[in-house]
Structures are given as structure tokens and as C-alpha cells.
């Protein structure tokens, strides 16, 4: 026991250094990735992919693309910031979907877990904006109409 724990912790440091260059890809490691931290903060300052959606009433044409994740209000808690951190988690989810769509056939995309989670996010926002049953919608990740455009769905 005496040396095992220090050796394990040393291994953790070595893996952190190694993963700062090449992240692990296996599903189990992705789920538990907070065990092996990545410290490459703000390496890329490009704004993340934008999540947009457009809606069409039953029998109607689609309207313009609109942002789903609105910028948060300037006021925020320094101690507790639940709403702000939730917005950041939504943005991470969109980035996960963008990453997992890479190299995936179009027909397979709607079966991806992050696709379905983002779909729920879009539907939640549409319902809270007063859209009713039967409203058709698509969402887009990236520039309006130029990034990945989802299948057509209905509330």
C-alpha cells in the first residue's frame, strides 16, 4: 500500500502530460475524463459553433434562422451562477455534437446521442417561445444554412 498510491498519483501526472498532446477516445475514458485533466485552456479563441433553428407552422414555409442559445445577461453571481454554467454546458453539448458529426453519414446522425440531446434543447426552447404541436423545425450547427442542417422534425 505504501508505494502503490504515490505510484498511481505519479502515473496520473504522466498521463495528464501525455494527454495534453493526444486525448483518449474510448467511451469509458470520455465519460470519466475528469480523472485525467486537460489544461489547454483558451487554446482556441474562435467562438464555438452556433446553434440555430428555424420553424414552419403546419402547411407554411420556413422562417429565418434564429439563435437558440442567447448570450447571457451581464449580471452573474460570483458565488452561485447556476444559469450561466447551464448555458456553458449547453454550448459544450453543441460542440460535442459538432465533433461527433465529423465523418458520420447523414442518415446516421439523428441516432447519435448528442443529436437527440440537442434536439431536446431546441424543442424546449421552441415550446417556451409559444410554438405548439405540429410546428415543424430544423436546427443548424454553424453559420446560418451553411453548417450541418438537421433533418426536419415536428413538435
Amino acid at each position, binding site marked *: *500500500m*505504501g*508505494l502503490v*498510491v*504515490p505510484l*498511481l*498519483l*505519479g502515473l*496520473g*501526472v504522466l498521463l*495528464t*502530460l501525455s494527454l*495534453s498532446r493526444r486525448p483518449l477516445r474510448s*467511451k*469509458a475514458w*470520455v*465519460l*470519466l*475524463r*475528469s*480523472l485525467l*485533466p*486537460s*489544461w*489547454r*485552456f*483558451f*487554446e482556441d*479563441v474562435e*467562438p*464555438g459553433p452556433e446553434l440555430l433553428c428555424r420553424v414552419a407552422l403546419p402547411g407554411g414555409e420556413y422562417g429565418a434562422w434564429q439563435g437558440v442559445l442567447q*448570450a*447571457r*445577461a*451581464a449580471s*452573474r*453571481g*460570483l*458565488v*452561485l*451562477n*447556476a*444559469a*450561466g*454554467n*447551464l*448555458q*456553458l*454546458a*449547453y454550448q*459544450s*453539448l453543441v460542440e*460535442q455534437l459538432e465533433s461527433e458529426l465529423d465523418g458520420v453519414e447523414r442518415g446516421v446522425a439523428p441516432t447519435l*446521442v*448528442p443529436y*437527440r*440531446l440537442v434536439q*431536446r*434543447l431546441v424543442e*424546449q426552447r421552441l415550446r417556451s417561445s409559444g410554438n405548439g404541436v405540429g410546428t415543424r423545425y430544423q436546427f443548424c450547427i454553424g453559420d446560418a444554412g451553411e453548417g450541418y442542417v438537421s433533418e426536419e422534425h415536428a413538435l
Partner: protein
Amino acid sequence: MSLSLVDALTWCARLSALSVALQTLELLQIRAAYADQGVWSWPILKEEHAALPLPLRALLGALLPYRAFLALLVVRLPLAGLLAMGFWWCAPLLLVSQLAIGARFRGTFNGGSDYMTVVVLSGLSAAAGGLNQPLLLKAGLAYVTVQLVLSYFIAGCVKVSRSEWRRGEALRRLLSSNRYGTPAWISVLVAKPPAARLAAGALLAFECGFPLALVGPRMALPFMACGALFHLGNAAAFGLNRFLFAWVAAYPALLYFSAQLAISSFIH
């Protein structure tokens, strides 16, 4: 100023308990987002667990359904209180719960702050496994210290290798983008290129120079003060409030090891 080994562990535990409690309260406030009808719906998430090793799948299947997850969060509050009071056995339980939270959000909920919280809880868990063994106590604190120093140093190195960061352009763009909803008064501070260059230079010098904090407590204290201000600034500019508490929880470990290594004492 220096801390004894036990004092350093005690303060890491207290500050980590505060960090864990605040994170937990936030997660409880947004519980609708991970309810079965919410965005991170467990019936959908569990589908991608099919390929996991059976023991891990069983553990996550027990901890992550909505009601079980809610119970896990509620239990974290008294556990954090007990850890702050010196009940070290709570550290490994909180570590497992922290990993479960990450898994519930497909890896992490809040990125870096989850990483550092796991680091500190890992160090405390190692220490909890050998309260009568100074080697284990030191190994736990050493792990926290090395990861803390790496967190700044690696972040600094990846930035300094990019010309847009050295020119201040990256900082200006980061603060003026919509990504984090940065308040306008902060964006204005670095709107002019010379101001952006100066601020970015100070940031890169702080992050890349952070290993110098190990030279001794006289170096560690100013670095820790700058670090706390840096995280306070990030909380104001980007809403990254969790980072402040997660990182400050690791500072007592740095203070302890800076005194132990005390390269400056050799010099003198």
C-alpha cells in the same frame, strides 16, 4: 508563512468542501435540465453506455437515473460538511460522486473546474487512505501541487506558442465575443491594441512563470494572490465562478510544498 502537512491537508479539505457544496447547490438549482423530460435525459444517455465494461455500466446505472442522481447530489452536501470538519473518509465518496457528475454530462459539466475538483479530491482521498503514513499524506498533496502548477503552465505554454496570443489579439477577441456574454465594461478595457498586448503579456508571464511559485513561500504567496485575482476576473468576465473555488482549494498544497522545497533556503 508556511503550513504544516496536516494544516495544508485540512485547508485543502475545507476549501474543497466549500467548492463541492457550491457546485452541488448549482446542480440542484438546474435539476430540470437533467430530469427525464429535460435535455440530459437519462433514458437517452444510457443507450451509449451499452458498450461500457459491465461493472462501470452497473455503477453508472445505479447512480445516474434522475432520482438516484438527485439523491446523490443531496447526499454530497452533508458529506462536504463532514469533510470540512475533518472526516477524511468523505473524500473518496465525494470523488466518486464528482466522477459520476462528469459522466452524467457525457464527460464533464463545467470542464476545468470539474478537473481541478477531481484533482483535489483525489489528493485528499490518497491522504485519507493513510492518515498515519506521512508518505501517503505527502503523495496526496504532491499530486495536487503538481497538477496545480501544470494547470497554469500548460495553459500558458499553449497560449504563448500562438502569435495571436502574444500580440494580444486573442485576448481582445475572447473578451469581445458573444461566447461568454462578457460585460461591455470589461471588453472596453482591452479594446485598444496596446492595452490588449499588455494584458495578454501579463497573463502569459503569470501562467508560464507559475512553476516559480515552488521556489518558496515568498514567491508562492504573490502567485497565489495573482491567481485568485485571475480567477475572480474570469468569474466576472466569463461567468467561470466555479474555477475560483476549485483552484483556491489547491493553494494550501502549493504553499506547503513551496516551503518544503524552499530552493530559496539553499540559495541563502
